[in-house]
């Protein structure tokens, strides 16, 4: 019997319901966590025999199917299994490393080992062994729990900062303008956030000043400028969502104005490389709209002398705007005659002067500078939120400032406010009061709150009594932040903080209902725009620029539509709480006219996205049929079966290909390969065993998708050659095309669900998932299986898992 190595700290015993971990863990994780100092109960006889049966099954598989290659001085993959014995899993001490065993389990679950050309176990054996391995590893985790350790200090990343400002101050900002991007680790940008470089610190200071000025408003010494430039590859022949029907092209700019006054709006039109304004034939009208109401119209036409230098110089106007958020629209009323012209053009894209020129002028840049003639502040959403009280006389200034700051600090610091917390904001307040008025004082005080590390950092501390090796539940307040940053990528709201302050948030039934509430809240959309966008590489769409000769139909409109389709599918699953398998297998997809045309689906009109029922002949539906994913895994001139296969291994199957071995041998004679097709080249490549070990896994998955070209369009031929979508899967089965590939992936749904769970866990914790998290992941997956993997059940399982609730002091 092993020594029981879990030391609950005194704090966890006395401050919390002592049975709490037991309840959660028994109910949901089948992990028996015995409180305090009692030794674990001895195993019952049936368990012992189950154990020995497991051990026998595993050991015989190792012997029969692994040791042929994983042995000797140069074992395959550098993994020597000679000394591996299944009984070690339960017998070894606390510092035993489970990672090779977790890896073995994964490779067996994915049927990737033994390789297809070796003698392979029967399907029954596979099932029995993976079950036995999981059971042994999970049982071991009951004795040696490792919830892992998130970093103590984690800075809000750029996205979280932006969302936090939105929730704290009712203020939409564009944080990409203010802060540098975080580097991604383990696939997410909220992992390596422990440092505070001088550049960042500088930016945080600047941001705090700009944001507090914007939120409080007024007090601008000089007019400020905003310049919006539209992507050069955006077509402006069609209606833009959000602008009135009957208009085409242009832009809708949502911006918060810091003060009331007149603002100068100037426009520039798209020009070609010869400096001529594109598409300027006949007369065109341009409207400037504020919150959908027309405030100015311009006429432009081709000058008689053809000199276009000054055509858009006169597109300047001053418009009165009140402080606060406004939607500034700049667009062209649709000319009915232009429609026919457009339809005659063979391509959907209209931005390239030489191949598919614009049919009508387009907006290139909108500059807004102001305010001029500043006027008294008007009410704005931010001011309504901030100024909950107003001093009736100067004597009240101080007390009112305290009330305002207390509310802001409570939310911003995500904990009860201490007396000490008031010192700095109040000192700043006094200075602002002296320089200006009460509002300026609040503005200065707010800037001091926004640079405070209690706002900028998420801090998870070890209890003072914790000793090395201790495992303890994180505090209620820390849990509130973990929850809200996981599901909302933002600050916890009042309700979450309240529950945490009452000390009842960590109760399983409370947690469960909070998970449901948070998921149903609009803010959970961050799971789409932040989590899914990183998981599925949607962020890389912006840098996807296909070769325009090969793909003359591609423009920014299509790029954005790609993104929307995938976001809509994920959001649909989230909102309807569907099975996560619906991401791979869906008979509905989300289209607007632009995307439907690209996919060759008829009868979808207009710029807005809507669910569309698709049939087999449409070749659309699940993620692997989305233009977004098919294009970010392609080169600009052609598809890459290898990248697509690698993407599936990483993001669907959860078995990322290992890094290429050092000293990859070069292809023998590259010149001789020039006339071969991609498939032939890859076939040659796989003849080399060093390359084959990974390419055998990647390439067939990618080939199955080769009916989709580099922009995700369906094709049966590439140039003159018929597309061959067949390939042999690691388990030796033959798969041909998308239908069979999806069926193959769904044959073992737990692989995809585990991958998604691991990705969510990585994102939720802000750390890489380790081998020691294996049991928790399996538990989440099997718990969710009962509901056919409903999304909320997976999120709930993660939130109730030890890695999410606890922390260890190594």
């Amino acid at each position, binding site marked *: 019997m092993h020594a029981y190595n879990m030391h609950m700290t005194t704090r966890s015993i006395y401050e919390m319901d002592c049975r709490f971990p037991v309840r959660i863990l028994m109910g949901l994780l089948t992990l028996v966590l015995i409180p305090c100092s009692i030794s674990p109960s001895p195993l019952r006889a049936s368990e012992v025999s189950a154990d020995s049966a497991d051990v026998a099954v595993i050991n015989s598989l190792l012997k029969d199917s692994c040791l042929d290659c994983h042995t000797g001085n140069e074992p395959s993959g550098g993994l020597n299994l000679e000394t591996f014995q299944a009984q070690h899993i339960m017998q070894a001490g606390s510092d035993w490393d489970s990672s090779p065993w977790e890896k073995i389990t994964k490779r067996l679950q994915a049927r990737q080992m033994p390789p297809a050309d070796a003698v392979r176990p029967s399907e029954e054996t596979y099932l029995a062994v993976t079950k036995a391995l999981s059971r042994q590893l999970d049982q071991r985790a009951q004795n040696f729990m490792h919830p892992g350790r998130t970093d103590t200090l984690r800075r809000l990343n750029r996205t979280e900062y932006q969302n936090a400002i939105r929730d704290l101050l009712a203020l939409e900002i564009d944080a990409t303008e203010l802060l540098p991007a975080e580097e*991604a680790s383990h696939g997410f940008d909220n992992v390596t956030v422990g440092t505070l470089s001088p550049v960042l610190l500088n930016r945080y200071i600047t941001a*705090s000043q700009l944001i507090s000025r914007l939120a409080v408003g007024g007090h601008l010494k000089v007019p400020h400028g905003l310049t919006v*430039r539209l992507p050069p590859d955006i077509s402006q022949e069609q209606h833009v969502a959000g602008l009135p029907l009957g208009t085409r092209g242009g832009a809708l700019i949502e911006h918060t104005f810091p003060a009331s006054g007149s603002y100068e709006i100037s426009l520039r039109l798209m020009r070609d490389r010869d400096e001529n304004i594109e598409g300027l034939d006949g007369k065109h009208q341009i409207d400037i709209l504020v919150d959908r109401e027309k405030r100015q119209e311009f006429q432009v036409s081709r000058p008689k002398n053809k000199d276009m230098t000054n055509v858009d110089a006169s597109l300047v106007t001053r418009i009165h705007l009140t402080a606060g958020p406004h939607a500034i629209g700049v667009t062209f009323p649709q000319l009915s005659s232009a429609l026919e012209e457009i339809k005659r053009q063979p391509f959907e894209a209209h931005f390239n002067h030489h191949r598919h020129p614009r049919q009508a002028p387009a907006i290139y840049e909108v500059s807004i500078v102001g305010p001029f003639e500043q006027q008294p502040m008007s009410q704005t959403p931010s001011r309504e939120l901030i100024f909950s009280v107003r001093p009736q006389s100067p004597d009240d200034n101080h007390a009112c400032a305290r009330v305002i700051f207390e509310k802001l600090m409570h939310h911003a610091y995500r904990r009860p406010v201490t007396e000490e917390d008031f010192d*700095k904001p109040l000192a700043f307040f006094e200075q602002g009061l002296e320089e200006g008025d009460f509002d300026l004082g609040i503005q200065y005080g707010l800037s001091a709150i926004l640079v405070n590390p209690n706002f900028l950092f998420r801090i998870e*501390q070890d209890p003072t009594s914790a000793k090395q090796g201790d495992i303890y539940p994180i505090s209620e307040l820390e849990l509130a932040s973990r929850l809200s940053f996981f599901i909302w990528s933002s600050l916890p709201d009042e309700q979450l903080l309240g529950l945490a302050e009452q000390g009842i948030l960590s109760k399983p039934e409370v947690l469960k209902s909070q998970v449901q509430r948070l998921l149903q809240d609009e803010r959970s959309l961050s799971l789409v725009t932040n989590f899914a966008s990183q998981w599925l590489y949607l*962020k890389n769409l912006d840098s996807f620029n296909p070769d325009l000769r090969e793909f003359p139909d591609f423009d920014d409109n299509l790029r954005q539509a790609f993104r929307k389709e995938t976001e809509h599918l994920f959001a649909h699953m989230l909102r309807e709480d569907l099975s996560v398998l619906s991401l791979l297998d869906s008979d509905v997809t989300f289209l607007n006219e632009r995307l439907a045309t690209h996919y060759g689906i008829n009868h979808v009109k207009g710029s807005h996205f809507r669910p569309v029922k698709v049939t087999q002949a449409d070749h659309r539906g699940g993620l692997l049929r989305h233009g977004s994913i098919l294009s970010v895994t392609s080169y600009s*001139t052609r598809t890459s079966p290898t990248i697509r296969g690698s993407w599936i291994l990483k993001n669907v199957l959860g078995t990322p290909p290992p890094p290429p071995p050092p000293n990859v041998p070069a292809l023998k004679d590259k010149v001789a390969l020039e006339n071969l097709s991609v498939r032939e080249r890859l076939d040659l490549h796989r003849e080399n065993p060093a390359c084959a070990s990974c390419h055998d896994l990647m390439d067939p998955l990618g080939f199955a998708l080769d009916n989709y070209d580099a922009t995700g369009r369906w094709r049966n031929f590439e140039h003159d050659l018929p597309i061959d979508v067949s390939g042999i899967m690691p388990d030796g089965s033959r798969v041909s095309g998308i239908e069979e590939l999806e069926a193959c992936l769904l044959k073992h749904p737990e692989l995809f669900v585990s991958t998604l769970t691991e990705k969510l866990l990585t994102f939720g914790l802000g750390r890489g998932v380790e081998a020691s998290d294996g049991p928790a992941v399996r538990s989440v997956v099997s718990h969710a299986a009962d509901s056919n993997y409903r999304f909320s059940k997976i999120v709930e399982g993660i939130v109730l898992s030890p890695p999410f609730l606890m922390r260890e002091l190594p």
Partner: protein
Amino acid sequence: MIFKKALSRRTILRGLGASFALPLLDAMLPAMTPIEQTVAAASKLKRIGYVYIPMGFNPAKWIPEGDDLSTLPSSLQPLEAIKNQICVVTNMDLQNAYPGSHATSNAAFLSAARAKRTESSDYYLGTTVDQVAARYIGQQTQLPSLEMSMDILSTVGQCDNGYACVYQNNLSWSSPTTPLPSEAHPRIIFEMLFGEGGSAEDRKESLKKRASLLDVVNSEIHGLKRKLGPSDRHKIDGYFESIREVERRIQQAESSVEENPLPDLDRPVGVPVAYADHARLMFDLQLLAFQGDITRVVTFQLARETSTRTYPEIGVPDPHHPVTHHGNNPEKLEKVAKINQFHVSLFGEFLEKMAATPEGEGSLLDHSLYMYGSGMGDPDAHDHSNLPIVVAGGAAGQMRGGRHLRFKEPTPLANLHLTLLNKVGVPLETFADADGRVEDLFDPVTL
């Protein structure tokens, strides 16, 4: 001629026991090193810049045939007007960048260090030369160094297998564990250099506010440190360093507000759409920063490793990265050369502007050193040998331009790094895997 016996600084300290302020002893100078080439030369060269191009070159169109630059191959042709102020250096390598990869090309270029293979936050590289320079010559200016790049998009999950994205994206590392993010937005760089603008009085007032906000951060972090366990305290110490750094910058900026010789400049607002225009603006900002003595150390990544940027404007509509896997296909090689030439032309324009901006008895270029090149040689093989390297400027430090320095044996790039650092006044005896200096880049002093 004085015979100098090499004696390391450490030897001196050991030998003399208690330290007393020593003038730079002759004995400390490496033997046989011309004095102008060592620390002792209180250099007239006061600034240094590094420009990075990704994915190597086509040597046939780059390496000059002879030892001078009388005929420049096509890739270097744009430097014709300025060729007397450049040296082309060939056959340098980066052994620590092996096994060949894109991530290590970028990471080793200025560090010459081996990147720890990890995708996690335990990345480890080495301090880069620009940051070494920043510590010595950057301290007198408002910004010790300026890190610039051209790519605003940040990619995820697409970095070299096994290497965290930081290796591929960051040229500059202020310590082996601290990559410095670069900035691609001209307006933000402008604001870093010149603030929001306004009158000197406004700028001073705004700096004062920044200082008190910094004070908030400082006192809170002190409080935090007390609450944390010992294992987390070291991280906090890193924050204090950043705080002191920002504090120093604020003070520096305060004192230079009035001395700043720069005219009121129009803030650039957006990012120019055309690549070349964007690059020119970025080079212009470097020039202004030098002219105003706001910084003395600059790094500039003209494109990122594995960039798939297309260059249709020069007849290369193909994405850069796949083209560089040329397989000796003459068409692809020609395209690589074209991209090389395009990048060089932007650099050349900048050098010409620097040469046309007077400073002291010469030009801004005379008092600056620039190293331009890639951490990859043959991109098809992902190798890090025979790197494309050009050194520019340096006339005030007697750099002898118009030459092609061709090493017979592969020579560590660190040798050149060390030479350039010494030349701008950084008293370094060795750097990374350097096994010497690039002896005849600069004129020996005849005594």
